[in-house]
Each structure stands twice: as structure tokens, then as C-alpha cells.
């Protein structure tokens, strides 16, 4: 068990940076966020295995960027028409009073972020089945989770 983080960077580093740039828009901000993603990898490297790493990194990068967008613009009324920003500012289905546990959830047994699922559905154009597979959930589980976001993100209606 355990992964080689440098090898992982060679293989997936540019994918992570690109993903962050796609969501944050700026290359320097993307590299900064990507370093946070790899920091999580370093912190949990002994518990991780090579299988499924790309999914884990994709989810973590998405989540990290959403959190950054959320910190940048805290109030829902700050959101413009950009669906990524609206998702970032929307409430989590399972949001806790104590913030900052989202990445822990991704690496642990806690459920994944609903906002991340919404980005995959609306921005990545993944199907419900693909999002479910990526998160180890059932399709109905994904549907159930995104229900809470539908008030804020009308684009989710009909999924």
C-alpha cells in the first residue's frame, strides 16, 4: 500500500493543473490549487493505492477549486450567471458546521461533495451513471444528493 507522489505527479500532474485552470481560470491560481491537491495526496499517501488515483485527483481538484471560488465570493448574491460560481456558492447537502472537512471526506469514508457532483454533471457533462461510478454511489444516491442544489442551480432540473 502507498503511492509514489512524484510518479503520480508525472502521470497526472498536468491533468490536475488543467482541471484547476478550467475551474479557476488563471494558471497561477490553478498551480496554487494543484499544490494543495497534491498536499492532500502527500498527507494520505501511505493509505492510498494506485488504483483509482485519477478519479480521486479529479474529484479533489474539483472540490479544492470550488472551495476557493467559495472563499473568493462568499455570498450567494455575489454570484453572477456563471454556473461554476453558483455551484461553488450553493449549500452542501451534508455541509457541517465545522468547515474544512471536505478533503478529509474525499479520502475517508464520508460522502463526497454534492457541489463536486454538480460540476461533473453540468460542466463536465458526465451522465448520472458516470458521476455515480466516480463517487462509488448509486445513481439514485447521486440524484438524491443533488436534489438539495436544484433550488439554486436550475440547470440541475431534469437530471
Amino acid at each position, binding site marked *: 500500500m502507498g503511492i509514489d507522489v512524484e510518479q503520480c505527479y508525472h502521470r497526472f*500532474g*498536468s*491533468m490536475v493543473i488543467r482541471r484547476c485552470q478550467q475551474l479557476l481560470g488563471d494558471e497561477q491560481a490553478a498551480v496554487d490549487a494543484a499544490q494543495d491537491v497534491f498536499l492532500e495526496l502527500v498527507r494520505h499517501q501511505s493509505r492510498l493505492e494506485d488504483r483509482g488515483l*485519477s478519479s480521486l485527483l479529479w474529484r479533489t481538484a474539483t472540490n479544492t477549486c470550488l472551495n476557493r471560488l467559495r472563499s473568493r465570493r462568499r455570498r450567494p448574491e455575489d454570484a453572477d450567471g456563471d454556473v461554476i460560481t453558483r455551484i461553488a456558492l450553493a449549500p452542501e447537502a451534508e455541509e457541517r458546521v465545522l468547515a474544512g472537512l471536505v478533503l478529509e471526506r474525499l479520502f475517508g469514508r464520508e460522502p463526497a461533495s454534492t457541489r463536486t457532483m454538480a460540476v461533473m454533471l453540468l460542466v463536465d457533462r458526465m451522465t448520472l451513471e458516470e458521476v455515480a461510478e466516480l463517487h462509488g454511489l448509486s445513481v439514485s444516491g447521486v440524484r438524491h444528493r443533488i436534489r438539495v442544489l436544484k433550488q439554486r442551480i436550475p440547470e440541475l432540473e431534469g437530471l
Partner: protein
Amino acid sequence: MNRPNLFTLERLVAGDLAAEEERVVLAAVRADPDLLATVEAIREADAHVRRRWPARPFLDGVERRQRRRRTRAIGGAAVVVALAAGLFLAFRATPPSAPEIAEVTRVKGDPALLVFREGREAAPLTSGAVAAPGDRVQLAFEPAGHPYGVLLSVDGRGSVTLHHPRAGRDTRLGGGTVLLDRSFELDDAPTFERFVLVLGDAPLDVDAVVAAASDLPDPMRSSLDLPDDAEQIDFLLRKSTSGSP
């Protein structure tokens, strides 16, 4: 199969697909000019990122972050331990006639909100702990350099209680750790008592903070609508219906 999504195309470029899936995805890409263009764009961007951000400097940056985080964690833990010890002693020694705010010690670090249960544990409670109606709790907080603060609680009925400032509207803090002199008895409001500490670098509008806390879509979880430079720290006590566990 479904049309390959961006993540699948990224995995294709990274060589992460199993042989059979790779074959199917490649066939789809070759048959679709848009997909082909996306894959070519990924390959170009890939080459750019590899040139611009080689592994070593990137990972050196990650290691620096890790060292900083460790330092902060150690500092944060030390602050909490110092606070807990200092406040427990101060809590026991605080005379009934003490001023509203007692400055216990000056410690730097992250802001912290501590809740002690009177007559029970010496250690502060952890957020999410279970308490019962009738329990008395003592509140303390470390503003970590923020000169202004408001402390309030919201209960399971959505009622807001202001703890600091107790009187008037002056949100200025003394500059060190703050221990409120009066303990607070939990009433029979159901489900939870959520304490919210709001810290700012400019004077805070108490009425606006109370109004924000009174108008939460989910009083247990929602963030308060605060000025951008204000910091919010939460502490949740879950309520049992009977006596303390």
C-alpha cells in the same frame, strides 16, 4: 458507450484507461472531429504544463506547504492546550463580581471558541458534544489578533442569544483571550445550541450580526451573511432530551 467526457479523454492522454476501454474510447475519438480536437488540445496543454511546471519545483512547493501546515498545527494545538489550562483555572477562580470580560492570557495563533461545562470536565467540550437542558456552560474565545468580536448562540427554535457584547454595542475586545464571566444555562430548546463567534478587524454592527443569525435558512448549519473581512467560528452542542450523558 456514452460519448467520452473530458475526464475520460484526460485519462486517455494520461494512459490511465484499461486496454479495452482505451480501444473503445480511441475509436470514438477517431470518429468524432470534436473529440479529436479536444484530445489534441489536451496533448498540447500537457506539453505546456510539463515544460512550465516540472515535477521538482512543483513538489518542492507542496513540501513547503506541508511544513507550514505542520507548524500551524503545532501552534494551534499549543494555543488550545494553553487556553484550556488557563481558562479552566480562571473559570474556577472567577469571582461572581468579576467584570464581564476577563483577559486570561495573550496567545497568538488561530482564533478559537471554547465551551466548558460547569461542574463536569476540566477539558473544553468538542464541537458536536452532547449536552442537556439545565447544563451550564462557560464560554471563552481567542480572537487571535482581531480587535472586534461578537459572540452569540442560536438554539433549536432559532432563538438568538447575544453573549458578547453583553450590554451596549461596543464590539471592541481587550486584546487577549476573552472569558465571559457569566455561565450560560442551556434551556429546553430542542436539538442543538450553536455558538457563533464573529471576529472582525473593524467595529462590527451587533444588530446586523444578530439579524443575520436570526434569519438563517438552516439555523444549525447555514453561514451568517457577514462583511467580507469578518471571520466566523462555530461551535455546536447537540441537545439530549434527558440528563447529561
